[in-house]
């Protein structure tokens, strides 16, 4: 189990792998995630399930090589196995059955938004997608997103492709141009999700976000993944990862996700040759 069956390099820092995980594939739903460990001394990190194929018994993971573990994961090749992989974890996303939804994906956040768009598209929901990255080389899953979106907007921070600006700016433009939408789903780095929520807040458009805090067990046992939602503490791994973005304490979420920044630096520096494209 857990063998890597396919591996695609999406951008210099983003990889996509298809993993043999029949148990997980059988149960996985949009919005859920897995936790994995890549070596005996390794840490446990969560990754969203970007796609699944129940028949083939596979799941797809898309990850950006940011820390030690994602870099080590990036070094694994086809036929290598992931040491431990557990899931599906978290509550499946409650997706609408009808209406119009704007799906906003920033950076590697496009990966987790893809299965949601696929499912909504299947249900007949009108899906308007806005995907973005810092520059055109970092855009991912454009084709896949286009296949399940009624409209696809591409943004780059540097203007090298599509709309010049943040995905949240594009969303603002759509709203101001009178595009009707029932809900927004935003997935990406915290600043991007936060900015998106600030855009929709004055219009009272329901905005779902997918939180990605530090986790250990992923089953409700440790509370490392605490997020404050509407003044209440939630455990993201069992109560989430999808929450009403207008209720999130973003400042807290941001500092909690950066809690181990010094240690992450140490780990990265100790292992200069971990990762990179092979």
């Amino acid at each position, binding site marked *: 189990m857990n063998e890597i069956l396919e591996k695609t390099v999406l951008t210099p820092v983003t990889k996509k792998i298809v993993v043999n995980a029949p148990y997980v594939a059988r149960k996985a739903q949009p919005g859920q995630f897995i936790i994995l460990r890549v070596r005996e*001394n390794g840490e446990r990190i969560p990754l969203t399930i970007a796609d699944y194929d129940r028949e083939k018994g596979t799941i797809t993971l898309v990850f950006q090589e940011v820390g030690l573990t994602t870099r080590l994961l990036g070094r694994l090749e086809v036929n290598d196995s992931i040491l431990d992989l557990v899931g599906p974890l978290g509550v499946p996303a409650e997706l609408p059955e009808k209406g119009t939804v704007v799906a906003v994906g920033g950076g590697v956040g496009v990966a987790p938004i893809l299965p949601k768009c696929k499912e909504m598209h299947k249900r007949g929901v009108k899906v308007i997608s806005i995907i973005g990255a810092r520059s055109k080389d970092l855009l991912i899953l454009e084709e896949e997103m286009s296949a399940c979106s009624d409209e696809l907007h591409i943004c780059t921070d540097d203007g090298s492709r599509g709309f010049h600006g943040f995905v949240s700016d594009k969303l603002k433009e759509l709203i101001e141009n009178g595009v009707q939408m029932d809900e927004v789903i935003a997935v990406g780095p915290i600043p991007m999700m936060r900015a998106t929520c600030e855009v929709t807040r004055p219009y009272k458009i329901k905005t779902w976000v997918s939180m990605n805090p530090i986790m250990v067990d992923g089953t409700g*046992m440790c509370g490392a993944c605490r997020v404050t939602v509407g003044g209440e503490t939630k455990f993201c791994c069992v109560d989430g990862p999808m929450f009403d973005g207008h209720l999130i304490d973003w400042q807290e979420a941001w500092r909690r996700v950066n809690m181990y920044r010094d240690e992450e630096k140490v780990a990265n520096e100790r292992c200069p040759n971990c990762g990179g494209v092979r």
Partner: protein
Amino acid sequence: MPIKERTEMPVQDPKERIKNFSQVALGYTEEMALNEASRCLQCKNPTCMTGCPVAVKIPEFIKLLKEKKYQEAIDKIKETNNLPAICGRVCPQEHQCEAKCVLARRGQPVAIGRLERFVADWEHSHGKSEVRKAEPNGHRVAVVGSGPAGLTCAADLARLGYQVTIFESLHAPGGVLIYGIPEFRLPKDVVRREVEYVKSLGVKIETSVVIGRTLTIDDLFHDGYEAVFVGSGAGLPMFMHIPGENLNGVYSANEFLTRINLMKAYEFPEFDTPIKRGKRVAVVGAGNVAMDAVRCALRLGAEKAMILYRRGREEMPARAEEVLNAEEEGVEFHFLTNPVRILGDDKGWVTGVECIKMQLGEPDKSGRRRPIPIPGSEFVIEADTVIMALGTSPNPILAQTTEGLKAHPWGGLIADEKTGRTTRPRVWAGGDAVTGSATVILAMGAGKQAAKDIHEYISSGAQGW
């Protein structure tokens, strides 16, 4: 005849041991064990056994030990206790067997736990009795969770010929023994050894499977298991719901201990999981979990490691030996002290705990005197790390995902005390999942009872439930 003094167990020097994670209590030598065993009066009507939740045949094993028949002694214990190397180290003997020892009335009871540990460790270093695999009886049982309850239930059933699979959500088996109790109190090698023993009986352990997520209990029945035992423990940490609890540097004891024990964060960066090494660490609570957390904090280099407890010294629920160890190691105890708020700096890191002084009132339902805050007595304790060790409750995942499996409002699964039968036919449960956080030995006992009832149920044709 004067009674001999209880034989002390050698321990690592407190000044040294707070710098390492190695075992604190070093165990008896043969000579010490024989000396201590000679104190046992071999009572005709042994009361010690009544204090043991699994009724280990204490006088009998001690007699064998005295005769230097160590293998027979350990075999005698193993008739009723599968995990003696663990129980000898972590059972609260002072409330159980040793409390009931007749010598306790006249001073110091026989050190039954230390003797149990001695013979268990002896077996490890002097070869082992042959593992006799039972003839398969063709029946399959699934066990959820690989803590002491699950391991015991699985082992007992395997010995009867059942084909047993344990499903464990973490990547390593052992439950609290592996993720909660630290190395210096219960070496992980000891746990792994016991797990290997259970495996040698033919039990299969599938790690990284969350029942209720990866597979449901219904899936297990669908896959051909005839009975399911749930030993999923009480892993959900409680918080106080006071301001500042989500500041950086506030941990649940479960997170702190899991990082350290399961993930070996104390060896960061050799191991990849990090942990904050606080200089002034305040642990809230005074049970075993709190003692473990505060002593881990010392070993991570804390200059000040404090226990904040809202009741008094007498009310502390931790094992007596561990309180003593913590004191020797320099842990500060702040009794009648209850946090009301956690304070932080402008970057969101903990700087202290605002506490209120308490006084003890009338005894509450648990029989302990109820702590009452003294108005206006607030004060601040400086700290850069705060660890909440307030207790845990069972994870609701199983009750939520299993039709007919009912839980009490506080989370514990509803199960028959004698048999472990739950409200869902063919599902048994025991250990912390039913009782809330308790002890290793009680979890083991519950696993044993359930194994017995599962066997009776299946061997009599699995009728009517």
